[in-house]
C-alpha cells in the first residue's frame, strides 16, 4: 500500500510542469473525469456540420468586437454640434450616440474596421444560424433526444434578430431611426396596451431621449447575456447527446464514427474559427457596411428612399408591407388589424418552426432515439413542409424589398405587392407539391440504383446485334447506405367496433393523427424501399436490363 503511494508520488515529482499543473487543477476541479469523457470525443465529419460552427464563431467575434466598441460609444441622445474630422457634417446637430459613431469611424484608428467586422459578423451570424437550422430541420436532426436543443437554437435565432435590431438602432442615424419609428408604430397597433408599452419603452413620446440608452443596455447586456447562456447550454447538449451522423458502412444508431476532438477537431474547429474571423476581416476591409456618415443623423420628419432593415428583419418588414390596411373602429376604439395581424403572423410563422419537432413526433408516435440523419428525400413530407416554410419566408423577404425590386427591375410596386399578397399563400402550396414530387423522384432513382446498379454510360453491342447499356452493380457499402433508412407505416385507428361488436370510441385527436399520418407515410407519400427479395430476384436472373 505504502509502496504504491510512494511510487505514485515519486512519478509525480518527476512529471513535466504541464502535468503538475493538470494534477493541481484535477485535485480542485476534477478535470480528469471531465477530460476522460471528452478529450478524445468522436465527432463525425460532414460539410453541413460546419454551419453551426460558423454561427458559433461569428457570435464570439461579435462579442470581442462589441466589447471594443463599447469603449468608444456614448449611448446618449443629448444633441451636440459636430466638429470632428468628417467635413460634410461640420456644425450639424446630432445625438451624442451618432457623433460617437462618427468618431469611431473617423478618429479612432481601426475603429471603422472593428465597427464593420461587428456588423458583418452580425449579418453572418444570423445567416449561419438560419442555414444551420435548415440543416438540422431537413436531416431530421431535431428528433429525440434533441428537441430541447432545437428550441435552444430557435431561441438563439429569435434573440439574435432582436439583438441585431437593437444594435443597428444605436447609432441613431436616419435609417435606423426610421426602423425604430416603424417598431414604435407597430407597438402602438397592439390592442389595449399598445400606447402604454410605447410610452414606457421610449420614456414618453417617440423618439424622446431615452431609447438609445435603453436599447444599449438591452443590446450589450440583457440579450447577449441570455444568448451566451443558451449557447453554452446548446454546446453542452451537443456534447452530451453526441453528434448525429449520416448512414453509411459501420455507422449505426448506437455508435458515432469520426475523428477525435484531440487532436483532429481541436485543430480543425479551432482553425476554422480563425478562417471565419479572417474572412470576415477581409470582407470588412473591402466592403463598406452601414456608412452612417452618408446617411445622416435621425430626424423624425426626414426619410430616405429605399430604406431597408438588415436582412433578418426583412421578413417582418415584408409582412407589414404586403398586408392591406385594415382598421376597425368599434365602441370608440381602433383595432389596427393591418399592422397587428402581421405582428401576430411574425410570431406564428416562427413558432410553427419551433414546434415542428413536437408535431412530427406526435404524428409518428416514435419514442426512440434517433442519431442517424435522414437524407431529405427520404422524408418527403417533412422536406416539402420545410421548403414551403422557406418559400413563405423568402416571399416575405421579397415583399420587404418591394421598392428595390421595383426600382431595379423597372416593375410596378403595386404589381409586386399584389404578387406577394397572393404568393404568400399560393407559393408555399406550390413549393410543397413540387418538393414532394422531387423527393419521390429521387427515391425512385435510389431504388433503381440499388436494384439495377449504377449507369456506367457504356453501351455494348452483343454478337447478335443487340445493344445494351452496362449497369455496374453497387458495392455493399452503397447498397447499405441507400437502404438504411426506415420507412414508417401510416397509423391505423383500428376497427370501428371491438371484438364484441360494440362500437369503439375513437378520440377526435386519434382520427386527426391517423389522417396526418396517412398524408405523411401513405403509399403515394413515399416510395417503398427495395427489399432484399426484389434485389435477389433481379440479380440472380439475367437482369442486366
Amino acid at each position, binding site marked *: 500500500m505504502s509502496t504504491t503511494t510512494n511510487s505514485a508520488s515519486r512519478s509525480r515529482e518527476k512529471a513535466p510542469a504541464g502535468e503538475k499543473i493538470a494534477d493541481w487543477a484535477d485535485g480542485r476541479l476534477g478535470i480528469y473525469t471531465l477530460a476522460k469523457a471528452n478529450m478524445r470525443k468522436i465527432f463525425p465529419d460532414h460539410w453541413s456540420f460546419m454551419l453551426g460552427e460558423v454561427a458559433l464563431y461569428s457570435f464570439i467575434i461579435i462579442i470581442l468586437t462589441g466589447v471594443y466598441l463599447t469603449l468608444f460609444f456614448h449611448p446618449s441622445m443629448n444633441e451636440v454640434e459636430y466638429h470632428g474630422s468628417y467635413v460634410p457634417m461640420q456644425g450639424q446637430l446630432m445625438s451624442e450616440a451618432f457623433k460617437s459613431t462618427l468618431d469611431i469611424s473617423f478618429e479612432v484608428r*481601426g475603429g471603422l474596421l472593428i465597427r464593420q467586422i461587428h456588423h458583418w459578423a452580425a449579418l453572418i451570424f444570423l445567416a449561419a444560424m438560419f442555414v444551420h437550422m435548415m440543416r438540422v430541420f431537413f436531416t431530421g436532426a431535431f428528433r429525440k433526444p434533441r428537441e430541447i436543443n432545437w428550441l435552444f437554437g430557435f431561441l438563439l435565432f429569435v434573440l439574435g434578430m432582436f439583438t441585431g435590431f437593437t444594435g443597428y438602432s444605436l447609432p441613431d442615424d436616419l435609417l435606423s431611426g426610421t426602423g425604430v419609428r416603424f417598431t414604435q408604430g407597430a407597438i402602438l*397597433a397592439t390592442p389595449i396596451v399598445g400606447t402604454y408599452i*410605447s410610452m414606457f419603452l421610449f420614456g414618453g413620446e417617440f423618439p424622446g431621449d431615452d431609447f438609445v440608452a435603453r436599447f444599449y443596455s438591452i443590446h450589450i447586456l440583457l440579450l447577449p447575456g441570455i444568448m451566451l447562456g443558451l449557447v453554452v447550454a446548446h454546446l453542452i447538449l451537443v456534447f452530451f447527446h453526441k453528434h448525429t451522423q449520416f448512414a453509411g*458502412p*459501420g455507422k449505426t444508431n448506437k455508435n458515432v464514427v469520426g475523428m477525435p476532438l484531440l487532436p483532429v477537431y481541436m485543430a480543425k474547429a479551432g482553425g476554422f474559427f480563425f478562417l471565419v474571423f479572417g474572412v470576415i476581416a477581409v470582407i470588412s476591409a473591402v466592403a463598406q457596411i452601414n456608412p452612417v456618415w452618408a446617411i445622416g443623423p435621425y430626424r423624425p420628419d426626414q*426619410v430616405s428612399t429605399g430604406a431597408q432593415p438588415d436582412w433578418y428583419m426583412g421578413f417582418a418588414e415584408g409582412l407589414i408591407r404586403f398586408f392591406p*390596411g*385594415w382598421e376597425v373602429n368599434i365602441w370608440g376604439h381602433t383595432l389596427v388589424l393591418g399592422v397587428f395581424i402581421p405582428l401576430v403572423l411574425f410570431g406564428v410563422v416562427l413558432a410553427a418552426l419551433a414546434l415542428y419537432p413536437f408535431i412530427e413526433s406526435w404524428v409518428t408516435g416514435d419514442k426512440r432515439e434517433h442519431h442517424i440523419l435522414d437524407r431529405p428525400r427520404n422524408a418527403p413530407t417533412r422536406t416539402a413542409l420545410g421548403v414551403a416554410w422557406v418559400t413563405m419566408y423568402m416571399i416575405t423577404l421579397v415583399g420587404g424589398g418591394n421598392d428595390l425590386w421595383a426600382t431595379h427591375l423597372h416593375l410596378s410596386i403595386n404589381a409586386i405587392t399584389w404578387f406577394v399578397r397572393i404568393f404568400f399563400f399560393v407559393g408555399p402550396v406550390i413549393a410543397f407539391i413540387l418538393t414532394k414530387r422531387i423527393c419521390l423522384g429521387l427515391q425512385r432513382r435510389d431504388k433503381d440504383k440499388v436494384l439495377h446498379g449504377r449507369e456506367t454510360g457504356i453501351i455494348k453491342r452483343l454478337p447478335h446485334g443487340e445493344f445494351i447499356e452496362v449497369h455496374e*452493380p453497387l458495392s455493399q457499402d452503397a447498397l447499405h447506405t441507400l437502404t438504411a433508412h426506415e420507412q414508417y407505416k401510416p397509423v391505423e385507428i383500428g376497427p370501428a367496433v371491438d371484438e364484441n361488436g360494440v362500437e369503439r370510441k375513437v378520440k377526435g385527436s386519434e382520427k386527426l393523427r391517423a389522417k396526418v399520418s396517412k398524408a405523411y407515410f401513405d403509399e403515394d407519400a413515399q416510395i417503398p424501399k427495395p427489399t432484399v427479395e426484389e434485389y435477389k430476384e433481379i*440479380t440472380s436472373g439475367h437482369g442486366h436490363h
Partner: protein
Amino acid sequence: MSSQDIPEENLPVAQDTTQVAVADEKHPFADPGLPPHEHRIQDIDERAAKRSERAVALLFTVSMLATVGFIASYVTIPHDKSVFVFPIGHLNALNFALGLTLGLALFCIGAGAVHWARTLMSDEEIADERHPIEAEPEVRAKVHADFKQGAKESALGRRKLIRNTMFGALALFPLSGVVLLRDLGPLPGTKLRHTLWSKGKLLVNMNTNEPLRPADVAVGSLTFAKPEGLEEHDHEFQTEIAKAALMIVRIQPDNIKDKRELEWSHEGIVAYSKICTHVGCPISLYEQQTHHVLCPCHQSTFDLSDGARVIFGPAGHALPQLRIGVNDEGYLEALGDFEEPVGPAFWERG
C-alpha cells in the same frame, strides 16, 4: 461484365450470379462495417509529410508577417488617406490595410491548422459507443423514491397552510419588480392627440426658417413646414416635429374633390400631416400630376386632392388635414390643431 462478350446461350447460369459485387450474399443490404483505412500519401511517404509540414509552417509564418504588417499600417498610414483598389473603387487606406493584414494573419493561422489536421494528424475513423440518454430503471426508481422521501420529510403536502402561504409569498413578490417599472415613462393620457399646432400659429418653411406666404407655395411644389417657435436647438424638437411635421401643396381649387378639404384650404393651398398613418414614417414623395404622395417606407399612397385618402398600400386611414388660413399680415397660419391624432393608429384613437 466480361461474360457479355460470350453469346448468352453459351453462358452457364451460375456464372451470372458471381457478377454481384456483394460480400454477404444472403444479406446484401446489411451493414458491412467500417471500411478499411486508406493511407494518405503523407502516411507512407515521409517526403510528402515534410512538404505538408513546410506548407503549414509557411502559413504560420505568413500570419506572423501579416501581424507585423498590421502594426506597421496602424502606425504609418494616416487615417484620412484614401486608396483606389481595383475593382472596388476608392477605399479608406487605413481600413483597407488593417482589415487585409488582420484577415490574412487570422486566415493563415486557420488554414495552417486545418492543413496540419488534414494531412498530418491521424485520419483513421474511430467508432465510439452511444449510450441511451434515459437512466437505467434502477436509477429511475431510486430517484423517484428519493424524491418521495424528500417531499415526505418536508411535509409540504401535509402542511397545506405552509404550502399555500409560501406559494402566495413567492407569487406576490415579483409584483415589486413590476411596480418598479412604472417610472419608465408617463401614461399616454392625451399626448398622442395633440401637436404644437394651435390657432394663429404661423406655418414656417422647414428649409428657410421663414414664415410662409401663399405666394411662396407654387403649384406642383411640395413644401415642408413646422409651427412657429419650434427651433432645431429646442430640447423637445425631435419629439414635437415627430407629430407636427407638415406638408403643403397647392392644388387648383377645381381639382379638389373633397368638400371639407377645400373648406380647410386657402386658395387651393392644403396642409396635411407629413407623418404616415401606417407606422409613422415621414412621407416625402410627391407626384405633381396626380397629387399622390407616397411613403417611401412601406409605399402607402395617398391622394392629396381627395382628402388624402389611401389609394394603395398598408395604411389604414387618410392623412389628417390641418385647417389653414391667412392672417392680417398675409402669412399662412393654422386655424387650430389637427382634429384627429396624427401618425399611426392606436387602440384609444377611436
